[in-house]
């Protein structure tokens, strides 16, 4: 199975390189190193969010409320900054992260304690969180000139030639690799998604593990809230509207199985990058906006189709092993 995942990641790497080559034929400056760094920076927020979503999907759940959580945490951070310009930025980030974690834990508790289907819970909280932004802000925008310079400058701060936003996503990728591979929690995500009943027998608390997955996705959404608002220097009710679908698409393209139990940090990151390259390339290769939507959609369906095939092959392999054991 590990080999298969490796293959899949390799497949994605090849796909991304092929995509870049294709774009370069139409618009060569796109593949200049400086521009590729920009593309990575632009995709950083999607990568962070996709990693949170991956943890949730691994446990056979889904988090549709991530973009709404991002928007609410981001709005709270922006309003805090507008009201108290003297407040240190790290404190504001901490508030956004804490708020995001709290919003995620609400999802987790509803799934855990009330046993409501995750898609229903997060569809509900998606609407509630968006509504809360309106209540909080009264529908007003927080604009660039209301934010302090330090608040806007942080993700743009250049370290060794790369913006802090890019570095931050790299740090989070590293943390997630450790969490998923080296901690009991990470293994619990996989075990639970692979077979929830078997996981119970190995002593894993299914509800609690799912709760923690939602806390993780909420925390990352909260952090992304600050990053988003600061990067685009504007906060309003509809920021990141519909972005939850991009996050899920990144996971699916990256080989995270919607049925749970299968996925990897590398896959989710590559899935997000694949989408990021497309999103950044479409504006420069000069094609109709209607075709753009169709292309984005087609890519997702192709990815799911490839995914389904990959999973089927895995099934056959297990069966053969089982037969061999019996015979």
């Amino acid at each position, binding site marked *: 199975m590990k080999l298969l995942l490796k293959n899949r990641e390799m497949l994605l790497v090849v796909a991304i390189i092929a995509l870049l080559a294709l774009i370069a034929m139409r618009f060569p400056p796109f593949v200049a190193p400086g521009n590729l760094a*920009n593309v990575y920076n632009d995709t950083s927020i999607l990568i962070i969010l996709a990693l949170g979503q991956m943890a949730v999907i691994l446990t056979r759940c889904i988090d549709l409320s991530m973009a709404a959580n991002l928007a609410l945490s981001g709005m709270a951070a922006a309003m805090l900054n507008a009201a108290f310009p003297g407040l240190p930025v790290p404190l504001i980030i901490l508030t956004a992260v804490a708020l995001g974690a709290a919003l995620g834990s609400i999802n987790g508790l509803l799934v855990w304690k009330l046993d409501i289907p995750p898609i229903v819970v997060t569809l509900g909280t998606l609407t509630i969180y968006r509504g809360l932004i309106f209540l909080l802000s009264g529908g007003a925008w927080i604009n*660039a000139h*209301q934010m302090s310079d330090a608040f806007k400058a942080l993700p743009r701060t250049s370290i060794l030639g790369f913006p802090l936003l890019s570095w931050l996503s790299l740090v989070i990728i590293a943390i997630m690799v450790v969490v998923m591979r080296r901690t009991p929690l990470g293994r619990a995500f996989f075990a639970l998604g692979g077979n929830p009943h078997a996981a119970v027998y190995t002593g894993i608390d299914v509800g609690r593990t799912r709760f923690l997955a939602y806390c993780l996705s909420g925390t990352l959404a909260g952090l992304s809230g600050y990053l988003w608002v600061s990067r*685009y220097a*504007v906060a309003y009710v509809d920021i990141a509207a519909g972005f939850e679908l991009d996050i899920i698409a990144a996971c699916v393209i990256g080989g995270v199985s919607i049925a749970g139990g299968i996925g990897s940090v590398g896959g989710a990151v590559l899935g997000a990058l694949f989408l990021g390259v497309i999103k950044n390339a479409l*504006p420069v290769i*000069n094609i109709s*906006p*209607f075709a753009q939507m169709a292309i984005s959609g087609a890519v997702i369906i192709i990815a799911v189709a490839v995914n389904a095939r990959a999973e089927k092959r895995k099934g056959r392999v297990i069966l053969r092993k089982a037969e061999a054991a019996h015979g």
Partner: protein
Amino acid sequence: MKILKTLLVTAAVSVAMMATAQAETKKIALVVKALGIGFFEAANKGAQEAAKELGDVEVIYTGPTTTTAEGQIEVINSLIAQKVDAIAVSANDTNALVPALKKAMDRGIKVISWDSGVAPEGRLMHLNPSSNPLIGNMIIKLAADNLPDGGDVAVLSATATSTNQNVWIEEMNKVLPNYKGINVVATVYGDDLADKSYRETQGLIQSHPNLKAIIAPTSVGIVAAAQAVTDAGKIGQINVTGLGLPSEMAGHVKSGASKSFAIWNPIDLGYSATMIANDLIGGAEAKPGAELKMGRMGTVKLDDKNEGAMADPFIYDAKNVEEFAKIF
């Protein structure tokens, strides 16, 4: 019986008193979508200016506390009871207000709508802040005014299917030959999403190295484009302009990413609505082709749907944006 008589007499006297009071000052009600919104407070400022200029007009500034049609209907009913002479309304719903406004017109009250209109049967005329041809001309003029030698400009719109933006861009293209040396090199769509608009702007900067201006006739797009130009270090090379709100654009005008942009002036709008209402009370008739007086704003000519356009969108730049940013 006696009590009834007394009541009747009192009623008659009060009606008579009201009638004389009416002859002295005309009462014009300015009904807004909701109280406490900067845009409408500014409209009221204009209405009061008109009242002062006319001398014999009292403006009643009113509206519900939340932007609901139900709230506005209540307000209109109470204005009918107060026997105002005219109602100028910015409606929360095109159709829901019609019965209440019809009742007002049956009582001889002159009803007009402004900013956000009501269906034709519910008003005598509707005042649009501007018109599609005027807006189309303004957005290209904003770019051209800062490019005396001409140059490449691009349009960043909302979605490819947004009716308003498409009409404005179409009108802009019609008058494009009047602006010598200005080439529109691309039209891209940011879908009114901050992140997509930002990326589309980055794309424009990359694929058109000689780009001199970006026209964004949408409030999300103009802000995102200004931020993208700032982040790309292109302030001074690329001017972001279009339609936006002063409170949202103040920072970008200050930084220089946007030299100027346009949107309706709410003060002029409140002023004109009051002036038109006064003209109608004075006996002017609202019919297709009629010209109604708007004081310092000139006259408005009604089209076949009894609608008229006030003026060009108002230009905001470093000189006045701070002042208007406090209003809306």
